[in-house]
């Protein structure tokens, strides 16, 4: 090993100090067809540093870390680990060399216990009891409390992430990759995570921290590498940059600011939910309990909360993908609609934008005009006596394209061929062009580039200004702060009382997202029941 470390002296870049980086990539390139996901990326990871990897969706962050973790083979370029050129056969080799990774999407079995899940990720050379003891010890050392005997489905998202982190730490990695770890955490949980990361750093481990939350990166990271369109734009010290300058490097230009029209007035209630309770539709789903709110025309209500606290179930109940036995639980435009199908609710003037663009909001392998028909068939004059008016569906595509700047290769391509941002603009546009009285939208800018996100948020604000009632579910607190008039928080299938946007500080919302301020209310319900 020692001999190999000298190898770097012969590389053209050389080394400016006596020590070598833990990991170095030179000209790392990954090609998918004609598309360069990573184009000649050079990156150095030093021990004892937290290195941020910044970039918009599609900039190539995930591709880069997958190559470093051995999940994909680079098309070209080299990876050096402790000075030695390595070609990783897969993640298990990466792990055995000391590279760990915590994914954004957890790979846990819901029906197994914490300890069983951890055991599955290890090589199994130690007994289950030894492993459990070590698990308890690691989780105690790093302040990541976990009960090894609990089944995963009972745990919160934050706790599940702890399992992934502990699992990675049990292999004593020299280098840990974290993919957007705070995306699923409350502000307070994020703070706790940062303490753990600082501690890992002080132990001399290196961390590669993927994020697009710039304030977080400024606070936590020593170095930042910014990717854009598959290329490295810059490596800099984030503490010396401003959030705005980092954003400019990520986006490659200024981002349009979203502006709410002055003097928006609220009118009559257009969407009312009365004591909505719904049993989960699938195993380990969330039970909606006693949800009530009233949304007036001209108003945007934001629903915050950690993913998996019932937001999907609420969307299904509001859209009519799941029906409620009691019609009065969902009232659209003054008409009890809890028992009505999604088509009937659309006819009442409601429109819906689900979180998942491909496969839920659109049929991926169908043309945009057909996807316009998907939600427009009931109420937009696209169907006459059972026959489709193709001209009308194409007109919707053209209008959405023009109004919301949807970029595509031809007039009517398949939905799956559009980029995430452009497809989302089309989906939101498709619904807004129907002039809905009520728009229910889930994660409107999830995985969307900054330019498209600004267009979409502006469109939601304009729709509210025009008099519609807009309900936005989002995990992005900054987004809600930007557009919502009031913000409520979902936790364990319950919805908090909405706070006025001006009062909804990150701290307050964070506490609600963790469930703490709901306790007295829950108790009250228990007494009432």
């Amino acid at each position, binding site marked *: 090993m020692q001999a190999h470390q000298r190898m770097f002296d012969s590389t053209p870049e050389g080394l400016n100090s006596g020590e070598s980086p833990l990991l170095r990539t030179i000209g790392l390139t990954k090609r998918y067809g004609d598309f360069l996901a990573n184009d000649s990326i050079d990156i150095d990871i030093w021990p004892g540093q937290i290195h941020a990897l910044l970039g918009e969706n599609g900039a190539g962050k995930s591709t880069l870390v997958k190559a470093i973790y051995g999940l994909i083979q680079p098309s*070209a370029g080299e990876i050096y680990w402790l000075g030695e050129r390595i070609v990783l056969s897969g993640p298990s080799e990466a792990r055995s060399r000391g590279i760990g990774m915590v994914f954004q999407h957890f790979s846990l079995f819901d029906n197994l216990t914490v300890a069983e899940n951890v055991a599955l990720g290890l090589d199994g050379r130690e007994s289950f009891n030894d492993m459990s003891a070590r698990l308890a010890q690691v989780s105690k050392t790093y302040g990541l409390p976990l009960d090894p005997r609990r089944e995963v489905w009972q745990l919160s998202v934050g706790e599940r992430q702890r399992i992934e982190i502990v699992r990675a730490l049990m292999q004593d990695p020299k280098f840990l990759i974290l993919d957007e770890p705070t995306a699923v955490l409350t502000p307070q949980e994020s703070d706790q995570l940062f303490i753990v990361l600082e501690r890992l750093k002080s132990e001399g481990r290196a961390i590669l921290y993927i994020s697009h939350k710039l304030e977080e990166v400024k606070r936590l990271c020593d170095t930042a590498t910014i990717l854009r369109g598959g290329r490295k734009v810059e490596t800099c010290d984030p503490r010396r940059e401003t959030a705005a300058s980092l954003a400019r490097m990520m986006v490659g230009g200024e981002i349009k600011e979203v502006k709410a029209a002055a003097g928006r007035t609220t009118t009559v209630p257009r969407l009312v939910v009365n004591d909505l309770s719904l049993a989960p539709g699938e195993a380990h789903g969330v039970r909606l309990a006693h949800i009530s709110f009233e949304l007036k025309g001209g108003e945007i209500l934001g629903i915050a909360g950690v993913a998996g606290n019932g937001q999907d179930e609420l969307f299904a109940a509001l*859209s009519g993908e799941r029906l409620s036995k009691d019609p009065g639980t969902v009232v659209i435009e003054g008409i009890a609609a809890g028992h009505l199908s*999604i088509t009937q609710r659309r006819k009442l003037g409601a429109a819906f934008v689900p979180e998942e663009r491909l496969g*839920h*909001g659109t*049929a*991926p392998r169908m043309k945009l005009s057909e996807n316009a028909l*998907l939600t427009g068939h009931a109420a937009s004059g696209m169907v006459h006596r*059972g026959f*489709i008016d193709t001209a009308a569906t194409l007109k919707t595509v053209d209008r959405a394209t023009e109004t919301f700047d949807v970029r595509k290769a031809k007039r009517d391509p398949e939905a799956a061929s559009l980029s995430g941002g452009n497809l989302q603009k089309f989906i939101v546009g498709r619904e807004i062009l129907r002039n809905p009285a009520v728009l229910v939208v889930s994660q409107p800018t999830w995985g969307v580039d900054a330019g498209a996100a600004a267009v979409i948020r502006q469109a939601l604000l304009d729709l509210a200004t025009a008099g519609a009632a807009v309900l936005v579910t989002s995990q992005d607190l900054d987004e809600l702060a930007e557009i919502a008039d009031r913000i409520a928080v979902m936790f364990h299938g319950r919805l908090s009382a909405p706070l006025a946007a001006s009062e909804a500080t990150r701290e307050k919302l964070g506490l609600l997202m963790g469930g703490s301020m709901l306790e007295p209310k829950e108790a009250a319900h228990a007494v009432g029941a």
Partner: protein
Amino acid sequence: MQLVLEKRAERSGTIALVSPLIAVGLTIVTMVILFAILGKNPLLALHAYFIAPLTDGYSLQEIAVKATPLVMIAIGLSLCYLANAWNIGAEGQFLIGAVAGSWIAVRTQGTDAGAWVLPAMLVLAAAAGALYALIPAICKVKFGASEILTSLMLVYVADLFLDYLVRGPWRDPHGFNFPTTAEFDPVATVPLLIEGGRLHLGAIIALLVVAAAAILLGRTIKGFEIRVVGAAPRAARFGGFKADHLVILTFAVSGALAGLAGIIEVAGPVGHLQPGISPGYGFTAIIVAFLGRLNPLGILVAGLFLALTFIGGEQAQIAMKIPLDVTKVFQGILLFYVLACDSLILYRFRLVFPNRQVARGTR
């Protein structure tokens, strides 16, 4: 150098058209090898299979006669498959249709029943085929039973039921104990299109079915529902379409078409009800549906092509003593290649030279 399969950004329209042809080409290459192994001259065998039947009028008519049930059944199956409902039991629905229609023919035999007999037979056959297909459909929707298994198993029930009828209650008393009904009366027979020929009215009905399916799938909201439910079930639910309803609908339509094909076959070319009225039309139609890319016009062409293999197989057996089962082998290989070539619509092959790229990457 390595060969990689990579995803296309958008499905290739050209390949969608060409892929069945590639599949046919690959099948023929495989058959040449197979004929050579059997010790037959491959060129002569291919000639007997694919050229000879096209050279005389009788064989051409016979191709159209064989294609008629294949196309009608395959159109119905394509609706099921587009909607993600897997009806494998068209053979059974075909037989039940034949039985139900024959019931009227048998009951009115020798009476002075008028011209209503044939239309009534067609309607009853379609209804019976639809009802028979609804058994697996309802079992799927209500109990989650696999329609693949239930529809297939019902084929054997129908087959044995027909067998029982023609050996028992419906056997022709003057038929020398052969398991068959008496010849149907003229009013219970599908009229011929060419005097003294074989081509019958069923061919026209098959063309009408193709046209109706093309309009249904291409122009109507119901056709759109069928396609969305199969292509993206969750998006379909979001669109307000109910998958269960479409399972019922497409099974009923495909059962009706299979039943109609069954009675047309019995009241047309065969002329009476007997076992073995189908050389596996209901199963071959599955190949027709996929070879035609689940597209009505494609199915018309594919139906004629597979009819050609039936006729060619008979000719090859007579002329070259090639077993008739080779036709089934041919059809099976064809389905295999058709499904394999479909992946080229969404993927493409690409040669990559990793070494050269590394050299460039590091200068």
